[in-house]
């Protein structure tokens, strides 16, 4: 430990003002504070500070994403091997999955990280830990067959236009990972939707369950089940879909970590769920025999299929782009849940509605917070006035 400290101190002058690599200071700072916690002490009151910082916070979010990454990787391998008709042992699934997923994650981290560092150097701010989350979330929302250059283009768009031009983590309006996905989705639709993209095997066709439901008749459940997918598969995540989004149980584990540590808002997750269940029940009730099959899909299937759980747990709860007031978070979550199901059901072009509904509510979040703040001002002033009069 002493060795690392000495080493850092010996090269520090090179990076400080007047040093040879002065311009690279943010890089030095990031590396230094990654290795060793800063020695900074408080200058004035309060003289003590909470142990929680951004590094810790983002590490916990990454930890919460890991179950999705692991099960997603396994499932990617499983789907590929099944499609080839090869035997799908656990180890084989993981190895095959890693071969497909790892390059995507590496490209996402490398290209996105490059932008992050470039902006940090030019704008002279610290390298933000938030990127560790964005760089892992984005690949998990992609189909396993996506070309790597699209991953690079997508993460570049997400990091630069979704975040950095606003001033970095904390200043962004939209969730950067979803911004990246939205870019790829609309720029390269053929690679992002349709039937051929969901398995890491060339030329194999197979729709996602939501896609099947969208085209099915009044009994979408049997249509889905006829493709060999049960509710149990949907819950475990052993179905074709984007890399990391499929497993409800992995998402639930992530949700547990985020809620237990208080880092993800349970209000948003819960209200999102309520919104989706409510809207699905409502649409079930109004759907007639002529309606698209997905309008008959029971609420529980909506929750377990597609990116609903993944979006609810990891994307909707992004504290920067979500509503920040408590009352606002309820409205925001309900909005996402309801809108997601509405898009799935009434817009046949998008069998998956989670991305669009979250982005839409991201944009509305400041307005929701504005409304919630006005309410807060009113109730606070009224309470205070009552006390002033009572004395």
């Amino acid at each position, binding site marked *: 430990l002493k060795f690392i400290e000495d080493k850092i101190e010996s090269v520090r002058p090179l990076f400080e003002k007047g040093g040879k690599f002065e311009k690279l200071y943010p890089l030095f700072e990031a590396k230094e504070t990654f290795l060793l916690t800063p020695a900074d002490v408080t200058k004035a009151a309060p003289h*003590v*500070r909470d142990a*929680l910082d951004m590094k810790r916070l983002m590490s916990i979010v990454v930890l919460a994403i890991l179950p999705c990454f692991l099960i997603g990787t396994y499932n990617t391998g499983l789907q590929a091997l099944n499609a080839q008709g090869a035997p799908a042992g656990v180890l084989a699934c993981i190895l095959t999955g890693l071969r497909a997923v790892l390059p995507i994650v590496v490209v996402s981290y490398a290209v996105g990280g490059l932008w992050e560092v470039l902006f940090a150097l030019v704008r002279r701010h610290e390298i933000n830990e938030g990127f560790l989350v964005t760089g892992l979330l984005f690949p998990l929302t992609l189909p396993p067959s996506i070309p790597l250059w699209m991953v690079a283009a997508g993460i570049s768009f997400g990091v630069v236009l979704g975040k950095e031009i606003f001033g970095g983590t904390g200043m962004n309006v939209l969730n950067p990972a979803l911004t990246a996905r939205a870019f790829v989705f609309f720029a390269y639709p053929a690679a992002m939707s349709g039937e051929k993209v969901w398995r890491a095997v060339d030329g194999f066709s197979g729709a996602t369950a939501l896609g099947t439901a969208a085209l099915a008749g009044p009994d979408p459940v049997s249509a889905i089940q006829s493709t060999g997918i049960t509710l149990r598969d949907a819950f475990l995540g052993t179905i074709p879909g984007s890399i990391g989004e499929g497993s409800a149980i992995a998402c639930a584990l992530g949700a547990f970590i985020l809620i237990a540590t208080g880092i993800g808002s349970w209000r948003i997750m819960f209200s999102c769920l309520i919104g989706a269940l409510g809207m699905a029940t409502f649409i079930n009730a109004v759907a007639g025999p002529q309606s698209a099959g997905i309008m008959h899909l029971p609420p529980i299937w909506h929750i377990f299929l597609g990116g609903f759980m993944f979006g609810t747990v990891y994307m909707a709860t992004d504290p920067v782009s979500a509503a920040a007031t408590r009352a606002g978070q309820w409205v925001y979550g309900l909005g996402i849940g309801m809108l997601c199901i509405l898009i799935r059901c009434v817009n046949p072009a998008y069998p998956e509605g989670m991305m669009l509904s979250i982005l839409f509510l991201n944009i509305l979040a400041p307005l929701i917070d504005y409304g919630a703040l006005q309410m807060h001002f009113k109730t606070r002033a009224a309470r205070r006035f009552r006390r002033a009069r009572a004395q």
Partner: protein
Amino acid sequence: LALIRITKGHDIPIAGRPQPRIIDAPRPARVALQPADFRYLRPRLLVAEGDSVKTGAPVLEDKDDPRIRFVSPGTGKIASVHYGERRRILEVIIELSGEEQFLDNPPMTREEVLGLDRFALKNKLLQSGLWPLIRQRPFSKIASPDDMPSAILINGMPADPFDADPGAFLSGMEESFQLGIEIISRLTDGKTHLCCAAGASHKAFTQAAHCLRHEIAGPYPAGLPAVQIYHVCPPKAGEVVWYISAQDVAAIADYFTAGKYPTQRIVSLCGPSVLNPTYLRTRQGACAESLSDGRVQEGEQRYVTGGVLTGRKIAATGFLGFYDSMLFVLPEGRTREFLGFLHPGHDRYSASRAFLSTLFPKATRLIDTNKHGSVRNFVLNSAYEDICPVDILPQFLAKSVLAGDIEESEKHGILDCAECGLCTFACPSKIELGRIIRKGIDDIRNEG
């Protein structure tokens, strides 16, 4: 009597709570007046280095209102006057020497004191140099003698769990305390409130007359008068509420009955670096050395006059603040840790639940001055939710201050901010929220 439950706040389990046992501290060699204790004060120096002063002799006055004066808390010689940037007076140091001599003032009986009218009382308080003990909300500055406060609040609670608890040291001072309450209550046409801790059984409180008694329950900062005022008697726009601590109320009564400037103060010497945290009987403005000598651990320490979340950093050779009844000593935290963010955190303290320590709560933890991270933009909003005792949303308020939007800041309730330090403590982005909000308060005052 009414019980007021304050639910928001947070008790940080720092080690070093004091035993409520009073020990006589050695007589300090030096005492000081520090203008930084008084918000917005522009002081004029009335003495020069080398002058001899008696206890109670004027040393400073307020340039904006020369009736408000600050007197020497001891007999001796003006040893030095320290100036800061732009010739701002930092401290006026008085070297104590010889027998204590007081500025002449006739002692009065209780009946004589109570025979004085409001005008005479105010004049005596101003003359004595005790007037600055009375402060006002909003702005936490010295009360303006021409104002009529809508209420006065006497704080009978320790400011935080480390502060000297009046309930533990008012014994023998009951009469002074009661007389003090009556003097104070004559300064307003409104009510005089006495706040004490829930369950406080000292008869100085239970038998207190001429005031409305409230019991306050809740975590830190329920003991801060600013928080109590928000919950008991918040000033309406344009109004002011005055406040004073119980110890100072008794000191004021002592001044009237003895005719001598009351120099004695009970101070808590506390914090993780203090060997046997306890109460000490010392003087107002005493040098920290006289309290800490032989009672503090070796190593680099931070000395704070006042609470650890609200007080002022002083040198080990510095002085107690005018209003402060605690000297908090904690270790400076300059040790670095390898890959600290991966640490399970069974020994870290956080108000959040992001560390293993949440599962293994301990009554006390060793917490030092390390910031535990570097500054980032606002990210996590849940960090501030249940912490602000006066129903402010700190991150939104700070943003409105940064945007220069005074109107919005006032809607947030910026003038109710108790400056308790909790939002800054809890901020995972390590933003100095308190300093930002304080700047907003200063801006409002400066714009009138």
